[in-house]
């Protein structure tokens, strides 16, 4: 039986060319294994052969994008591999994404399985986790042995098209793909068992991991409300009638910034509510129910506060992905800071 042909991709450092000073090394290949490839071959044993190694400088890869990718692909293809293994790249910020890109290319263009191993904070993880299988790795080459073993073993399993266990079992990062499976106990029983374990101080594992929210320190109080410039922001999806900027009613990633200068209130002729997660007829009937421009103008005249900012910010906060919500928030905040706004009233349904 012919052995599985593996090609290993590594950077200039692991390829023993040099360090940062050699990060602009153009891609080259050698027969057999190089650097950590020797460990890889030892792990693979008789099951597969590292027929070649492709090396590329981390800077060269990213500074020459398309050209570097083509060059690397050609070198990979030259070995007619059955399987590509890249890295592991631990927490290396250029090497990691390069491994991801190489694996994606090998999968797409050569039609062969390709895997890499990355530390959980490596930027390459978020960029490529949905496209390729990435195994867990430590933050540095200190854990090379176990990380390479994890990577190599999973690579062989994938090549052999064996059914894979869950991410925690097999040591890879979740793709975001849900696989249904049967359990020996119904959910109610599992839930109660989990609670009993928790109360008794026994270890337990949640079936659904909730996202981690970063807690932000609240701002200091407004010192002088009568001079403060206040801005109104909403995620209730109040947009100019006709939604000119096509803000999505759900799962959106854009927000609008619209002038309310000289407006005494928002009118249903000029604004509407496009939020898909609530009955938006009430917001369309009277947009002030979300963005209380009318009330603010009354209180502005009474000099309770200094001035209503001339712009409102809006998006529809319906099933928005957390990372997009964060980006939008940061962008709006940066804009507000640049205009010296004193405080914000954010309204949500």
């Amino acid at each position: 039986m012919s052995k599985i042909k593996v090609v290993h991709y590594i950077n200039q450092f692991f390829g023993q060319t040099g360090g940062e000073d050699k990060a602009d090394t153009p891609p080259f290949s050698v027969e057999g294994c190089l650097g950590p490839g020797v460990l890889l071959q030892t792990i693979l044993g008789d099951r597969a052969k590292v027929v070649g190694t492709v090396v590329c400088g981390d800077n060269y890869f990213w500074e020459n994008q398309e050209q570097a990718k083509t060059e690397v692909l050609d070198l990979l293809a030259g070995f007619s591999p059955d399987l590509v293994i890249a890295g592991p790249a631990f927490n290396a910020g250029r090497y990691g994404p390069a491994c991801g890109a190489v694996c994606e290319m090998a999968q797409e263009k050569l039609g062969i399985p390709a895997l890499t191993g990355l530390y959980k904070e490596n930027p390459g993880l978020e960029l490529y986790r949905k496209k390729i299988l990435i195994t867990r790795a430590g933050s540095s080459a200190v854990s090379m042995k176990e990380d390479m073993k994890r990577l190599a073993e999973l690579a062989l399993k994938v090549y052999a098209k064996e059914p894979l266990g869950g991410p925690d079992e097999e040591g890879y990062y979740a793709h975001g793909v849900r696989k249904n499976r049967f359990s020996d106990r119904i959910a109610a029983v599992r839930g109660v068992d989990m609670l009993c374990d928790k109360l008794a101080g026994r270890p337990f594992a949640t079936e659904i991991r909730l996202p981690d929210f970063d807690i932000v320190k609240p701002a200091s109080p407004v010192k002088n409300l009568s001079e403060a410039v206040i801005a109104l922001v909403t995620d209730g999806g109040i947009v100019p009638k006709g939604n000119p900027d096509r803000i999505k009613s759900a799962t959106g990633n854009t927000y609008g910034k619209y002038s309310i200068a000289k407006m005494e209130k928002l009118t249903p002729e000029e604004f509407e509510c496009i939020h898909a997660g609530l009955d938006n007829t009430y917001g369309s009937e009277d947009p002030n129910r979300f963005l209380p421009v009318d009330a603010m103008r009354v209180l502005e005249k009474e000099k309770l506060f200094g001035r209503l900012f001339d712009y409102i910010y809006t998006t529809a906060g319906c099933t928005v992905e957390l990372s997009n919500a964060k980006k939008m928030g940061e962008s709006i905040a940066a804009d507000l800071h640049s205009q010296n706004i004193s405080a914000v009233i954010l309204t949500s349904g």
Partner: protein
Amino acid sequence: MQISSLIKIPEMMGIKRIIGGIGVPYPLGNPHVSKAEEERTRQKYVERALRLLEQPLIDPA
């Protein structure tokens, strides 16, 4: 500060200055009362919101 009809959500996010909105489709509205009363109510809520911005936060520690 945030006015939200579902206060659990901003609480979960660690936001400290929160006022509960009136209803999910109308956080600062009430279609079941007269226009005049709805506007009065909205003004009351907005005034509360502005006052909350001036409030220092008490550190439980």
